């Protein structure tokens, strides 16, 4: 099932072609042809150049151009590694799981192409522990079949190129989606972020040059190599080319993954794809990048879905995980849910994140239990101001935009919870419970 904006899926091809998870079906539909083209005609440098020319930007959240990232890998240091970030853990995100479960070969072919381009002989796919099912069944079977066909292993397609892909499962830690934390986790130490520089391209896994890409990013690569950068650029905008999977959840009639060319309005995603809001209610807020989003007000519903337009609207496209709030949703409750998530997932390495998320959760609890004052509302702003720019990694600061934008958009709801009677000096009233 496609939509009017996209006649044929580029990524979610299993929705057009039945049983494409089967290697025979995948091969009958152009599968592994990109790999043959790369190995027999193009060579590594041209593969990187094609991906760079296609303008493919990282689909994990940061939006960094994939081809440029690959070109950072030094030629003269060995071994090199490819690590796939399949630690899909941002609340509201469920696209990589669908790719891996239903279109695994296109993803695996993308991993092989990436390894070929940068000269890596080992690749690891790091999935969140909750992906045990898809990893041990679908993905492992797909890898076994790819080995059996000679697309993986030694001297692939008769060339000098060899690569092995290994699966590795995390064990329930959001922080491992941060690329340096992921590398540490894979090395068997605590999954906490590392300082940069050195960047992973220079000293990544086992201190060797490493490319880290998201599942969806690499799934884009086979069609780019097979059909060329110009073909790919027919989709999307000049600066945000291609298609993107939008994860739509929350108060819509038809939540789900929708693959769209970049550059359509948010309204199209909510109304045409998602069938509008449940019960015909009004949109109250849009979280475009999961729990770490700046919340967009309903007035921004015509913002275009590309990296630049979203940034211009003061938000981020991120992983394109759209959580939709309708007019019935309690804004303070929603913000507290996300704050609790970040509190739970703080890795504990730096104090602004470790302590800041605890204090935020405490103040939210106080407000929602009717013990809050206007001072507490202001305190939320004070805490996020102190966190911003001071956390060790970007994920530590992911709690900031949600709290700040919620306060800005729905200030009246916060103030309605602040009771003047609580202003009276009663020390026990001001206690904030810390759940350490």
């Amino acid at each position, binding site marked *: 099932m496609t939509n009017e904006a996209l006649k044929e899926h580029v990524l979610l091809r299993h929705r057009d072609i039945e049983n494409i998870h089967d290697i025979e079906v995948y091969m009958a539909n152009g599968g592994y042809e990109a790999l043959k083209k790369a190995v027999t005609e193009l060579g590594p440098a041209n593969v990187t150049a094609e991906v760079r020319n296609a303008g493919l930007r990282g689909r994990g959240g940061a939006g960094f151009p994939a081809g440029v990232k690959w070109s950072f890998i030094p030629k003269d240091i060995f071994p090199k590694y490819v690590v796939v970030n399949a630690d899909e853990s941002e609340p*509201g995100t469920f696209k990589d799981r669908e790719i891996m479960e239903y279109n695994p070969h296109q993803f695996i072919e993308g991993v092989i192409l990436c390894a070929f381009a940068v000269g890596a002989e080992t690749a690891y796919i790091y999935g969140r522990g*909750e992906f045990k*099912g898809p990893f041990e069944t679908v993905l492992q079977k797909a890898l076994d079949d790819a080995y059996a066909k000679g697309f993986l292993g030694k001297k692939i397609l008769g060339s000098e190129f060899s690569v092995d892909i290994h699966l590795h499962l995390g064990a329930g*830690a959001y922080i491992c989606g941060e690329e340096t934390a992921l590398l540490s986790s894979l090395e068997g130490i605590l999954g906490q972020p590392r300082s940069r520089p050195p960047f992973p391209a220079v000293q990544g896994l086992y201190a060797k040059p490493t490319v880290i890409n998201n599942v969806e990013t690499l799934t884009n690569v086979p069609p780019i190599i097979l059909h060329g950068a110009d073909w790919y650029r027919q989709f999307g905008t000049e600066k945000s080319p291609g298609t993107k999977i939008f994860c739509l*959840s929350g108060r819509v009639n038809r939540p789900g993954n929708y693959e769209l060319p970049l550059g359509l309005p948010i309204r199209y995603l909510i109304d045409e794809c998602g069938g509008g809001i449940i019960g015909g209610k009004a949109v109250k807020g849009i979280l475009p990048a999961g*729990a770490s989003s700046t919340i967009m007000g309903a007035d921004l519903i015509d913002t275009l879905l590309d990296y630049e337009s979203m940034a211009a609207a003061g938000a981020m496209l991120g992983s394109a995980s759209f959580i939709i709030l309708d007019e019935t949703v309690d804004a303070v409750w*929603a913000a507290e849910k996300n704050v609790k998530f970040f509190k739970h997932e703080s890795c504990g390495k730096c104090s602004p994140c470790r302590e800041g998320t605890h204090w935020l959760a405490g103040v939210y609890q106080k407000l929602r239990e009717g013990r809050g004052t206007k001072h507490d509302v202001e305190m939320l702003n004070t805490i996020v101001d102190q966190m911003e720019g001071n956390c060790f990694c970007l994920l530590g600061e992911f709690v900031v935009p949600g709290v700040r934008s919620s306060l800005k958009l729905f200030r009246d709801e916060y103030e309605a919870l602040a009771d003047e009677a609580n202003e009276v000096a009663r020390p026990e009233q001001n206690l904030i419970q810390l759940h350490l």
Partner: protein
Amino acid sequence: MWSEKEQQELDQILKKYPNKLSAVMPALYLAQREKNWLDDDDIEAVAGALDISVTHVHSIIGFYTLYRKEPVGKYMVQVCTDLPCALRGAEDFYHRLCERLGVGPGGGTTTDGLFTLEGVVCIAACDKAPCLQINLAYYESLTDEQIDQVIAGLRAGEQSP
């Protein structure tokens, strides 16, 4: 403590990495597989097999949520109650399930020791709320009746997928 089969699996795991330390997470999963949690013997066995300290193994177990040092039920039932799911009724679904299974509102283990119920954060199934995992197998777009049937089936000895 490793059975012959587990030892073979461990050998396969070790081949994937250039050093033994990297195998700590898969080795812990292997050690936890049979009874769903890790006792001191399991932890020492992992440390011994990988030539790493018991302390380090403890730090790894403590850091991640999917390794457990306390006994839990045969079936670990993890219900997502995060924002996207909560917007589609997951919190109420979870509380009703806790009530029907006779565990407290914050989750817990059933008196027969079969099920441990826990509210968890996002499991990447937000479009199919209410959703949960039983021993990491997905169950999605659930009604109360459907999950009751699944639970009854497991009680009657059916295999979880």
